[in-house]
């Protein structure tokens, strides 16, 4: 008699090991556990919902293809966030190149070629109409990448310093100082923005 396994009780590492042995239910469980976290992280990083979902799917696809590469050296979450961060960085680079090309071909008479980012969320999402929230997101978007990634991982995803250091590949001291400097910059940006809205 095969035992009925409650996958929700298994740890991330146990699930990935099961997935490595072609247990696709374990993969589904991992997707369910991390899809919201990942979309949120990627949304805060990119500032775009659709892009965040696309990059999240790319990340899960990478996990599916390279499941055998995971070793029990680090936590699964650390390894998974590293994949996600690399994916979003490469995609943003590609997109920025594409955008520079499209701007160069910009025709003011034909505005239909330009699609503005869709900032309308689903009704089941948390209402994001609060001006302060929008301003905070804009401030995060305007931050430099080196500060943005560490602040999101620390203050939004609530990861430990050593985990952030592993994900970004930076020394612990650098991570701490970057978080500090990032917050300082974010504060100045927010003050400016709130003043301008008032």
């Amino acid at each position, binding site marked *: 008699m095969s035992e009925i396994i409650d996958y929700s009780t298994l740890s991330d590492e146990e699930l990935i090991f099961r997935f490595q042995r072609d247990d696709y239910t374990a993969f589904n469980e991992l*997707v369910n556990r991390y899809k919201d976290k*990942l*979309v949120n992280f990627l949304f*805060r990083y990119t500032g775009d919902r659709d892009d965040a979902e696309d990059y999240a799917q790319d990340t899960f*696809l990478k996990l599916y293809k390279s499941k055998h590469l995971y070793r029990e050296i680090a936590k699964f979450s650390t390894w998974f966030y590293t994949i996600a961060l690399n994916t979003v960085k490469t995609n943003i680079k590609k997109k920025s190149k594409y955008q520079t090309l499209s701007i160069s071909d910009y025709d003011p008479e034909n505005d239909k070629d330009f699609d503005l980012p869709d900032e309308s969320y689903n009704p089941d999402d948390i*209402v994001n109409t609060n001006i302060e929230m929008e301003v905070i997101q804009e401030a995060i978007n305007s931050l430099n990448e080196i500060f943005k990634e560490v602040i999101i991982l620390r203050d939004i995803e609530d990861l430990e310093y050593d985990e952030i250091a592993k994900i970004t590949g930076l020394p612990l001291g650098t991570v701490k100082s970057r978080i500090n400097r990032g917050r300082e910059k974010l504060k100045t940006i927010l003050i400016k923005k709130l003043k301008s809205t008032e």
Partner: protein
Amino acid sequence: MNTEEKYPEIREKLRKLPRIKARDDFLNRLLNRINLLENQPLTVSHPKKEEHDKEFHLEKPLSEKILEKFSRLKPVWLIPTVSFAVILLVVFSYLLYVRNTDTQQETVSAPQLTQETETKTPSFKEEPRTDKLTIPEPRDENLQYSEAREDVSSKKQVSKEPPKVTNESGVVAPLERKEPDLKTEAKPEINGKNNDEKDLQEADKKLKADEKTKEKITDTKGKVEVGKTKSAVVPAPPKKKIEIEKEGFLEEKKKTEKEIKPDSLKK
């Protein structure tokens, strides 16, 4: 902790940000993409083509396979390899040429040396033959030639020595050496016919005559044997003939000795 204490209000604001959730169809879209990804390798995979060829006996012969492999060579690799091969060929051919010239020089220098030695040797030596049929001469004869030569030269020296003049008292007094009178001494050279030289020339002529007789003998024998093998060495003449020739030569030698000897020595 210090970093959190520095800007706690910012941290709190960031933590309070609403959590964005994935859309409901997120999992379905993901599974669709996974299915597409799994189907792609089947359409793209090339290794199965070989298996297919094997199954349907579409394997090409070895010669065609080799040709295909060569045709697949990219020019990036082809150009350096060809150029290197050409350079190697040139170097190899040059080395061969140098080697050949060296061997030719060696072969040329060897006959030159022999010619030089021939010029140094006396005139009564055998002349080189054209028909390459040589008689292996007995070693004694050569010795005899050399002895005869030495004898003749010693006699020359004796004849060249100034004649001793006797005084009225009968005591032999050596003549004082006079300054060479070019006019008087040049005469015999101009004429080129001293008695000794004449004798030598006569002896040479006789020797040559003997050699000619030898050649005639060998030619008659050689003609018979040439039909079989041209390069074959003609056997040595019979011993009797050689002895006869030797006797003749010795007689001539005695005659020359008699003629060369000055009257004073005869006495």
